[in-house]
Protein backbone atom coordinates (compact mmCIF):
# COMPACT_ATOMS: atom_id res chain seq x y z
CA UNK A 1 0.00 0.00 0.00
CA UNK A 2 1.18 3.49 -0.83
CA UNK A 3 1.51 5.80 2.15
CA UNK A 4 2.73 9.32 2.76
CA UNK A 5 3.81 10.27 6.25
CA UNK A 6 5.08 13.66 7.35
CA UNK A 7 8.00 13.03 9.70
CA UNK A 8 9.69 16.01 11.33
CA UNK A 9 8.11 18.25 8.70
CA UNK A 10 9.23 16.25 5.67
CA UNK A 11 6.92 14.05 3.59
CA UNK A 12 8.12 10.47 3.18
CA UNK A 13 6.43 8.13 0.73
CA UNK A 14 6.56 4.39 0.97
CA UNK A 15 5.11 1.24 -0.50
CA UNK A 16 4.48 -0.94 2.52
CA UNK A 17 2.97 -4.27 3.44
CA UNK A 18 -0.15 -3.78 5.60
CA UNK A 19 1.55 -5.83 8.33
CA UNK A 20 4.59 -3.51 8.59
CA UNK A 21 4.83 -1.81 11.96
CA UNK A 22 5.28 1.95 12.07
CA UNK A 23 8.58 1.62 13.94
CA UNK A 24 9.99 -0.56 11.16
CA UNK A 25 8.87 1.93 8.51
CA UNK A 26 10.57 4.77 10.36
CA UNK A 27 13.81 2.90 10.98
CA UNK A 28 14.21 0.68 7.92
CA UNK A 29 12.47 2.53 5.12
CA UNK A 30 12.87 6.18 6.13
CA UNK A 31 16.23 5.51 7.75
CA UNK A 32 15.64 7.49 10.93
CA UNK A 33 17.17 5.17 13.50
CA UNK A 34 16.97 7.45 16.53
CA UNK A 35 13.67 5.79 17.46
CA UNK A 36 14.52 2.50 19.12
CA UNK A 37 12.99 -0.95 19.32
CA UNK A 38 13.18 -2.16 22.90
CA UNK A 39 10.71 -4.75 24.10
CA UNK A 40 8.53 -4.85 20.99
CA UNK A 41 5.63 -5.72 23.30
CA UNK A 42 4.23 -2.26 24.21
CA UNK A 43 5.96 -2.25 27.57
CA UNK A 44 9.09 -0.11 27.40
CA UNK A 45 8.44 3.10 25.44
CA UNK A 46 11.79 3.08 23.58
CA UNK A 47 9.81 3.37 20.32
CA UNK A 48 7.93 6.51 21.43
CA UNK A 49 7.09 9.00 18.67
CA UNK A 50 4.84 12.04 18.65
CA UNK A 51 1.84 10.89 16.60
CA UNK A 52 -0.47 13.73 15.57
CA UNK A 53 0.69 15.69 18.60
CA UNK A 54 0.70 13.00 21.27
CA UNK A 55 3.37 10.53 22.41
CA UNK A 56 2.55 6.96 21.43
CA UNK A 57 4.33 3.64 20.92
CA UNK A 58 5.28 3.16 17.27
CA UNK A 59 5.76 -0.58 17.80
CA UNK A 60 2.05 -0.91 18.47
CA UNK A 61 0.60 0.57 15.31
CA UNK A 62 0.89 -0.25 11.64
CA UNK A 63 2.68 1.95 9.14
CA UNK A 64 -0.47 2.12 7.00
CA UNK A 65 -2.27 3.73 9.91
CA UNK A 66 0.21 6.62 9.74
CA UNK A 67 -0.77 7.52 6.17
CA UNK A 68 -1.56 11.25 6.13
CA UNK A 69 -0.42 11.83 9.70
CA UNK A 70 2.31 13.97 11.22
CA UNK A 71 5.00 12.30 13.27
CA UNK A 72 7.78 13.73 15.38
CA UNK A 73 10.87 11.70 16.24
CA UNK A 74 13.98 12.49 18.25
CA UNK A 75 15.72 13.67 15.08
CA UNK A 76 13.17 16.49 14.86
CA UNK A 77 13.97 17.95 18.26
CA UNK A 78 17.01 20.03 17.37
CA UNK A 79 16.45 23.28 15.53
CA UNK A 80 19.18 23.91 13.00
CA UNK A 81 22.53 23.80 14.79
CA UNK A 82 20.94 24.23 18.23
CA UNK A 83 19.96 21.44 20.55
CA UNK A 84 16.43 21.48 21.91
CA UNK A 85 16.43 22.57 25.58
CA UNK A 86 15.43 19.02 26.58
CA UNK A 87 18.53 17.67 24.82
CA UNK A 88 20.77 20.22 26.51
CA UNK A 89 19.21 19.41 29.88
CA UNK A 90 19.68 15.64 29.45
CA UNK A 91 23.34 16.38 28.68
CA UNK A 92 23.88 18.77 31.55
CA UNK A 93 21.96 16.77 34.16
CA UNK A 94 23.41 13.47 32.98
CA UNK A 95 19.92 12.15 32.30
CA UNK A 96 21.23 9.15 30.41
CA UNK A 97 23.73 6.36 30.62
CA UNK A 98 23.39 3.78 27.85
CA UNK A 99 21.00 6.17 25.97
CA UNK A 100 18.66 3.43 24.73
CA UNK A 101 15.56 4.92 26.38
CA UNK A 102 16.66 8.52 25.88
CA UNK A 103 14.82 9.37 22.63
CA UNK A 104 11.53 8.24 24.14
CA UNK A 105 12.24 9.98 27.45
CA UNK A 106 13.07 13.26 25.72
CA UNK A 107 9.97 13.18 23.52
CA UNK A 108 7.69 12.39 26.45
CA UNK A 109 9.43 15.07 28.53
CA UNK A 110 9.15 17.71 25.80
CA UNK A 111 5.50 16.79 25.31
CA UNK A 112 4.82 17.16 29.04
CA UNK A 113 6.48 20.59 29.12
CA UNK A 114 4.18 21.88 26.39
CA UNK A 115 1.19 21.60 28.72
CA UNK A 116 2.98 21.80 32.07
CA UNK A 117 6.11 23.96 31.88
CA UNK A 118 6.97 23.55 35.57
CA UNK A 119 6.16 19.97 36.55
CA UNK A 120 6.68 18.51 40.03
CA UNK A 121 8.67 15.33 40.60
CA UNK A 122 5.45 13.32 40.77
CA UNK A 123 4.11 14.87 37.58
CA UNK A 124 7.28 14.04 35.66
CA UNK A 125 7.36 10.49 37.02
CA UNK A 126 3.69 10.07 36.08
CA UNK A 127 4.37 11.33 32.55
CA UNK A 128 7.33 8.98 31.99
CA UNK A 129 5.64 5.98 33.61
CA UNK A 130 5.25 4.32 30.20
CA UNK A 131 8.99 4.56 29.50
CA UNK A 132 11.47 2.20 31.10
CA UNK A 133 15.10 3.08 31.89
CA UNK A 134 17.35 0.28 33.16
CA UNK A 135 20.38 2.46 33.95
CA UNK A 136 19.73 5.72 35.69
CA UNK A 137 17.20 5.00 38.40
CA UNK A 138 15.23 7.87 36.84
CA UNK A 139 16.46 10.56 39.25
CA UNK A 140 18.54 12.42 36.67
CA UNK A 141 15.88 11.98 34.00
CA UNK A 142 13.36 13.73 36.24
CA UNK A 143 15.90 16.47 37.00
CA UNK A 144 16.69 16.91 33.30
CA UNK A 145 13.04 17.33 32.29
CA UNK A 146 12.51 19.89 35.06
CA UNK A 147 15.69 21.72 34.06
CA UNK A 148 14.47 21.86 30.46
CA UNK A 149 11.22 23.40 31.68
CA UNK A 150 13.13 26.12 33.51
CA UNK A 151 15.37 26.82 30.56
CA UNK A 152 12.40 27.10 28.17
CA UNK A 153 10.75 29.53 30.60
CA UNK A 154 13.98 31.56 30.83
CA UNK A 155 14.21 31.69 27.06
CA UNK A 156 10.68 33.08 27.12
CA UNK A 157 9.14 30.63 24.73
CA UNK A 158 8.20 27.09 24.08
CA UNK A 159 9.71 24.72 21.57
CA UNK A 160 7.66 22.50 19.43
Amino acid at each position, binding site marked *: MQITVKINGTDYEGDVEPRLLLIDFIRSQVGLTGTHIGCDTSSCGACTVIFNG*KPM*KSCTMFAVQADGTEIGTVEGLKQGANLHPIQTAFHEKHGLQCEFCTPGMMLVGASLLETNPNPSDDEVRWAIS*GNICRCTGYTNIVAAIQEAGRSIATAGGSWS
Partner: protein
Amino acid sequence: MLAKLAEVGEEGRVLAGGQSLIPMMKLRLATPSYLVDINKLTDLAYVRQDNDHLAVGALARHAEIAELENLADFSPVMADVAPSIADPLVRNRGTMCGSVAHCDPEGDWNSVMLAVGATVVAVSAEGERTITIDDFIVDFFTNSLQAGEMVKEVRVPIPPGRKGGAYLKLHRKVGDYATVGVATHLEFDDAGKISKAGIGLTSVGPHNLRAAEAEAALVGQDPGEELFDHAGELAAASCEPASDVRGPAKYKRAVVKEYTKRGLLKAANGSN
Protein backbone atom coordinates in the same frame (compact mmCIF):
# COMPACT_ATOMS: atom_id res chain seq x y z
CA MET B 1 -16.97 -0.25 6.60
CA LEU B 2 -19.80 -2.38 8.03
CA ALA B 3 -20.18 -4.07 4.63
CA LYS B 4 -16.49 -4.93 4.72
CA LEU B 5 -16.83 -6.25 8.26
CA ALA B 6 -19.77 -8.43 7.15
CA GLU B 7 -17.79 -9.64 4.14
CA VAL B 8 -14.78 -10.82 6.15
CA GLY B 9 -17.01 -12.30 8.86
CA GLU B 10 -15.33 -14.53 11.43
CA GLU B 11 -11.93 -13.92 9.80
CA GLY B 12 -12.02 -10.21 10.59
CA ARG B 13 -11.30 -8.11 13.63
CA VAL B 14 -12.00 -4.43 14.19
CA LEU B 15 -8.84 -2.42 14.82
CA ALA B 16 -9.37 0.64 17.03
CA GLY B 17 -6.50 1.57 19.37
CA GLY B 18 -4.85 -1.81 18.86
CA GLN B 19 -3.01 -1.61 22.16
CA SER B 20 -4.10 -5.11 23.11
CA LEU B 21 -4.82 -6.62 19.70
CA ILE B 22 -1.47 -5.78 18.06
CA PRO B 23 0.64 -7.20 20.92
CA MET B 24 -1.52 -10.34 20.84
CA MET B 25 -0.99 -10.64 17.09
CA LYS B 26 2.77 -10.39 17.59
CA LEU B 27 2.56 -13.30 20.02
CA ARG B 28 0.27 -15.18 17.58
CA LEU B 29 -2.38 -15.31 20.28
CA ALA B 30 -4.67 -13.55 17.80
CA THR B 31 -4.41 -14.38 14.11
CA PRO B 32 -7.11 -12.48 12.24
CA SER B 33 -6.94 -12.72 8.46
CA TYR B 34 -8.33 -9.21 8.10
CA LEU B 35 -8.21 -6.07 10.21
CA VAL B 36 -10.88 -3.44 9.64
CA ASP B 37 -9.31 -0.18 10.83
CA ILE B 38 -11.91 2.28 12.14
CA ASN B 39 -9.46 5.05 13.08
CA LYS B 40 -10.59 7.36 10.30
CA LEU B 41 -14.23 7.22 11.44
CA THR B 42 -13.67 10.28 13.59
CA ASP B 43 -17.43 10.62 14.23
CA LEU B 44 -16.94 7.80 16.74
CA ALA B 45 -14.40 9.77 18.80
CA TYR B 46 -16.78 11.15 21.41
CA VAL B 47 -17.51 11.08 25.12
CA ARG B 48 -20.67 13.00 25.89
CA GLN B 49 -23.74 13.17 28.05
CA ASP B 50 -26.75 11.85 26.19
CA ASN B 51 -29.88 12.37 28.32
CA ASP B 52 -29.61 9.92 31.24
CA HIS B 53 -26.31 8.31 30.29
CA LEU B 54 -22.72 8.99 29.37
CA ALA B 55 -22.08 7.84 25.80
CA VAL B 56 -18.56 6.66 24.99
CA GLY B 57 -17.89 6.22 21.27
CA ALA B 58 -15.76 3.48 19.75
CA LEU B 59 -12.84 5.83 19.13
CA ALA B 60 -12.78 7.62 22.50
CA ARG B 61 -9.22 7.10 23.78
CA HIS B 62 -8.56 6.32 27.44
CA ALA B 63 -6.78 9.67 27.84
CA GLU B 64 -9.74 11.61 26.43
CA ILE B 65 -12.04 9.92 28.92
CA ALA B 66 -9.64 10.61 31.80
CA GLU B 67 -9.43 14.28 30.78
CA LEU B 68 -13.21 14.74 30.57
CA GLU B 69 -14.28 17.57 32.80
CA ASN B 70 -16.84 16.53 35.43
CA LEU B 71 -16.29 12.82 34.78
CA ALA B 72 -16.64 12.20 38.51
CA ASP B 73 -20.06 13.90 38.45
CA PHE B 74 -21.21 11.35 35.88
CA SER B 75 -19.43 8.32 37.27
CA PRO B 76 -17.01 8.44 40.22
CA VAL B 77 -15.71 4.93 39.53
CA MET B 78 -14.90 5.82 35.91
CA ALA B 79 -13.04 8.91 37.07
CA ASP B 80 -11.07 6.73 39.47
CA VAL B 81 -10.07 4.07 36.96
CA ALA B 82 -9.43 6.19 33.86
CA PRO B 83 -5.98 7.54 34.87
CA SER B 84 -4.78 4.08 35.91
CA ILE B 85 -5.41 2.23 32.66
CA ALA B 86 -2.10 0.88 31.32
CA ASP B 87 0.44 3.76 30.93
CA PRO B 88 0.25 7.30 29.49
CA LEU B 89 1.41 6.29 26.00
CA VAL B 90 -1.10 3.48 25.76
CA ARG B 91 -3.84 5.75 27.08
CA ASN B 92 -3.20 8.14 24.20
CA ARG B 93 -4.01 5.42 21.67
CA GLY B 94 -6.14 2.70 23.26
CA THR B 95 -9.92 2.94 23.46
CA MET B 96 -12.41 2.07 26.18
CA CYS B 97 -14.78 0.36 23.76
CA GLY B 98 -11.90 -1.73 22.43
CA SER B 99 -11.00 -2.78 25.94
CA VAL B 100 -14.63 -3.66 26.67
CA ALA B 101 -14.85 -5.72 23.47
CA HIS B 102 -11.54 -7.45 24.16
CA CYS B 103 -12.95 -9.14 27.30
CA ASP B 104 -9.54 -9.74 28.83
CA PRO B 105 -10.26 -10.95 32.39
CA GLU B 106 -7.31 -8.78 33.48
CA GLY B 107 -8.76 -5.65 31.84
CA ASP B 108 -9.95 -2.93 34.20
CA TRP B 109 -12.79 -1.36 32.24
CA ASN B 110 -15.17 -4.34 32.23
CA SER B 111 -15.19 -4.53 36.02
CA VAL B 112 -16.17 -0.86 36.06
CA MET B 113 -18.82 -1.46 33.40
CA LEU B 114 -20.28 -4.30 35.48
CA ALA B 115 -20.33 -2.08 38.58
CA VAL B 116 -22.16 0.78 36.85
CA GLY B 117 -24.48 -1.46 34.82
CA ALA B 118 -23.36 -0.32 31.36
CA THR B 119 -24.97 -1.17 28.03
CA VAL B 120 -23.09 -1.96 24.84
CA VAL B 121 -24.41 -0.73 21.49
CA ALA B 122 -23.46 -3.16 18.74
CA VAL B 123 -23.79 -2.26 15.08
CA SER B 124 -23.63 -4.30 11.90
CA ALA B 125 -24.76 -3.91 8.30
CA GLU B 126 -28.15 -5.18 9.49
CA GLY B 127 -28.61 -2.49 12.15
CA GLU B 128 -28.06 -1.76 15.81
CA ARG B 129 -28.84 -3.61 19.01
CA THR B 130 -28.11 -3.00 22.65
CA ILE B 131 -26.61 -5.62 24.95
CA THR B 132 -26.29 -5.40 28.74
CA ILE B 133 -22.69 -5.71 29.89
CA ASP B 134 -23.60 -8.93 31.74
CA ASP B 135 -24.77 -10.50 28.47
CA PHE B 136 -21.90 -8.96 26.51
CA ILE B 137 -19.15 -10.58 28.61
CA VAL B 138 -19.35 -14.29 27.81
CA ASP B 139 -16.04 -15.85 28.80
CA PHE B 140 -12.24 -15.62 28.62
CA PHE B 141 -11.55 -13.15 25.77
CA THR B 142 -15.05 -13.85 24.45
CA ASN B 143 -17.90 -11.40 23.93
CA SER B 144 -21.38 -11.97 22.52
CA LEU B 145 -20.86 -10.04 19.27
CA GLN B 146 -21.85 -11.88 16.11
CA ALA B 147 -19.64 -12.01 13.02
CA GLY B 148 -19.91 -8.67 11.23
CA GLU B 149 -20.82 -6.75 14.39
CA MET B 150 -18.72 -4.16 16.19
CA VAL B 151 -19.04 -2.09 19.37
CA LYS B 152 -20.20 1.37 18.33
CA GLU B 153 -20.76 2.84 21.78
CA VAL B 154 -20.86 2.01 25.47
CA ARG B 155 -23.52 3.68 27.60
CA VAL B 156 -22.97 4.37 31.27
CA PRO B 157 -26.09 5.35 33.24
CA ILE B 158 -25.83 8.68 35.08
CA PRO B 159 -27.50 8.15 38.47
CA PRO B 160 -30.00 10.90 39.33
CA GLY B 161 -29.21 11.02 43.05
CA ARG B 162 -26.20 10.80 45.33
CA LYS B 163 -23.60 8.26 44.26
CA GLY B 164 -20.02 7.22 44.84
CA GLY B 165 -17.49 4.84 43.41
CA ALA B 166 -13.90 3.67 43.44
CA TYR B 167 -11.48 1.44 41.58
CA LEU B 168 -8.80 -0.18 43.69
CA LYS B 169 -6.04 -1.87 41.74
CA LEU B 170 -3.15 -3.88 43.10
CA HIS B 171 -0.41 -4.02 40.50
CA ARG B 172 3.33 -4.59 40.50
CA LYS B 173 4.15 -1.58 38.35
CA VAL B 174 2.55 0.97 36.07
CA GLY B 175 1.36 -0.72 32.91
CA ASP B 176 1.23 -4.20 34.38
CA TYR B 177 -2.06 -6.03 34.58
CA ALA B 178 -3.89 -5.92 37.88
CA THR B 179 -3.02 -8.66 40.33
CA VAL B 180 -6.47 -7.87 41.65
CA GLY B 181 -8.83 -5.01 40.76
CA VAL B 182 -12.11 -4.14 42.44
CA ALA B 183 -14.65 -1.67 41.05
CA THR B 184 -17.35 -0.42 43.40
CA HIS B 185 -20.34 1.78 42.67
CA LEU B 186 -22.99 2.88 45.18
CA GLU B 187 -26.18 4.92 44.83
CA PHE B 188 -28.13 6.30 47.78
CA ASP B 189 -31.80 7.19 48.37
CA ASP B 190 -32.98 10.36 50.09
CA ALA B 191 -32.79 8.67 53.49
CA GLY B 192 -29.12 7.84 52.93
CA LYS B 193 -29.66 4.12 52.46
CA ILE B 194 -27.95 2.24 49.65
CA SER B 195 -30.42 2.01 46.77
CA LYS B 196 -28.12 0.38 44.24
CA ALA B 197 -24.76 -1.37 44.49
CA GLY B 198 -22.37 -2.58 41.83
CA ILE B 199 -19.16 -4.56 42.35
CA GLY B 200 -16.94 -5.80 39.52
CA LEU B 201 -13.81 -7.92 39.97
CA THR B 202 -10.68 -7.98 37.77
CA SER B 203 -8.11 -10.79 37.35
CA VAL B 204 -9.84 -13.25 39.66
CA GLY B 205 -11.78 -15.40 37.20
CA PRO B 206 -12.06 -16.47 33.55
CA HIS B 207 -13.62 -13.07 32.85
CA ASN B 208 -14.49 -9.96 34.83
CA LEU B 209 -16.94 -11.02 37.53
CA ARG B 210 -19.96 -9.39 39.11
CA ALA B 211 -20.05 -9.98 42.88
CA ALA B 212 -23.85 -10.37 42.85
CA GLU B 213 -24.29 -11.71 46.38
CA ALA B 214 -22.24 -8.89 47.85
CA GLU B 215 -24.29 -6.36 45.86
CA ALA B 216 -27.57 -7.87 47.12
CA ALA B 217 -26.35 -7.71 50.72
CA LEU B 218 -25.78 -3.95 50.41
CA VAL B 219 -29.07 -2.78 48.91
CA GLY B 220 -31.50 -1.26 51.39
CA GLN B 221 -28.86 -0.95 54.11
CA ASP B 222 -27.20 1.99 55.80
CA PRO B 223 -23.57 2.31 54.72
CA GLY B 224 -21.08 1.25 57.38
CA GLU B 225 -17.80 -0.53 57.95
CA GLU B 226 -19.36 -3.71 59.32
CA LEU B 227 -21.68 -4.02 56.32
CA PHE B 228 -18.82 -3.39 53.89
CA ASP B 229 -16.67 -5.97 55.65
CA HIS B 230 -19.46 -8.52 55.15
CA ALA B 231 -19.77 -7.53 51.48
CA GLY B 232 -16.01 -8.04 51.14
CA GLU B 233 -16.35 -11.58 52.51
CA LEU B 234 -19.13 -12.36 50.05
CA ALA B 235 -17.15 -10.93 47.12
CA ALA B 236 -14.08 -12.95 48.12
CA ALA B 237 -16.16 -16.12 48.38
CA SER B 238 -17.65 -15.56 44.92
CA CYS B 239 -14.43 -15.06 42.95
CA GLU B 240 -12.31 -17.70 41.24
CA PRO B 241 -8.66 -16.60 41.41
CA ALA B 242 -5.83 -18.76 40.06
CA SER B 243 -2.29 -18.94 41.44
CA ASP B 244 0.20 -17.43 39.02
CA VAL B 245 3.28 -15.22 38.76
CA ARG B 246 1.37 -12.36 40.44
CA GLY B 247 0.52 -14.34 43.56
CA PRO B 248 -1.22 -17.38 45.04
CA ALA B 249 -5.01 -17.71 44.83
CA LYS B 250 -5.40 -17.42 48.60
CA TYR B 251 -3.62 -14.07 48.60
CA LYS B 252 -5.73 -12.73 45.73
CA ARG B 253 -8.91 -13.78 47.50
CA ALA B 254 -7.78 -11.93 50.63
CA VAL B 255 -7.09 -8.83 48.54
CA VAL B 256 -10.58 -9.02 47.00
CA LYS B 257 -12.07 -9.01 50.49
CA GLU B 258 -10.02 -6.07 51.69
CA TYR B 259 -10.28 -4.02 48.48
CA THR B 260 -14.04 -4.52 48.29
CA LYS B 261 -14.37 -3.15 51.80
CA ARG B 262 -11.98 -0.25 51.17
CA GLY B 263 -13.60 0.54 47.83
CA LEU B 264 -17.07 0.64 49.36
CA LEU B 265 -15.82 2.90 52.15
CA LYS B 266 -14.27 5.23 49.59
CA ALA B 267 -17.46 5.13 47.51
CA ALA B 268 -19.62 5.98 50.53
CA ASN B 269 -17.34 8.67 51.98
CA GLY B 270 -16.53 10.39 48.69
CA SER B 271 -20.04 10.32 47.30
CA ASN B 272 -21.57 13.34 45.61
